């Protein structure tokens, strides 16, 4: 199962996310989920970044919030809406919006 997981909140913990063991889980950070790409609480990066084989963040949502692309974790690939559409059709089969 290629599962795309939209994380739309700056969330500290989510039971479902913690328990997922899909073959290929991709994390797609959108809306306030993009804070997970940059903010290091007490110096520690978000645990959301460790869940997926791939992690993406939506550029429009980063920019809206004043998040500096240079501060983004190197693991995170930045995509725009066009790139997101390609991810949706080419890289994942099913999606959940947490």
């Amino acid at each position, binding site marked *: *199962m290629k599962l795309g997981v939209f994380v739309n909140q700056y969330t500290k913990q989510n039971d479902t996310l913690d*328990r*997922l063991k899909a073959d290929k889980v991709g994390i797609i950070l959108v809306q306030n989920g993009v804070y997970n790409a940059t903010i290091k609480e007490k110096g520690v990066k978000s645990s959301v970044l460790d869940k997926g084989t791939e992690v993406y963040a939506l550029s429009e949502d980063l920019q809206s919030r004043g998040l500096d692309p240079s501060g983004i974790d190197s693991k995170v690939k930045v995509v725009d809406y066009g790139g997101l559409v390609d991810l949706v059709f080419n890289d994942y089969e*099913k999606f959940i919006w947490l």
Partner: protein
Amino acid sequence: MASKKFLFMVDKLPYKAESSRLALTHAIASQTVDIHLDEDDEMEEPVIAFVGDGVLNCMKGQKALECYGVTSLEMHIKNALLTDIKVLICKEDVERLGLSEDNLIMDAEDIGADMQSEIVPFDDILQQMEKSNHILYF
């Protein structure tokens, strides 16, 4: 002929977001989906899984109708059982929250349903995620 399977997942609490209510009404709407499908298409009986704090939707004895004039999630869950929808409740969360079968809506015998809810490990729900064509995560 195409046959497809849908999984409805609920991790939201009841009576705060409308999500859990709409998850149930949408799942029950699968009863009438045929009118929109091609003749040789078929939708399998849907599964609804309560996970995380969402298992609190399944508590017995909800008096929302008496207190707020709105149908309870309990009534919706019983309607789902009556229409033969598989209702799964995540075991890990039931235990974490200190609940048991005694607190939860395990059947709808009072309205004539044969189907019963099942408390299952998250791994079983993960299997349902894998088997389903689409996941509607409320």
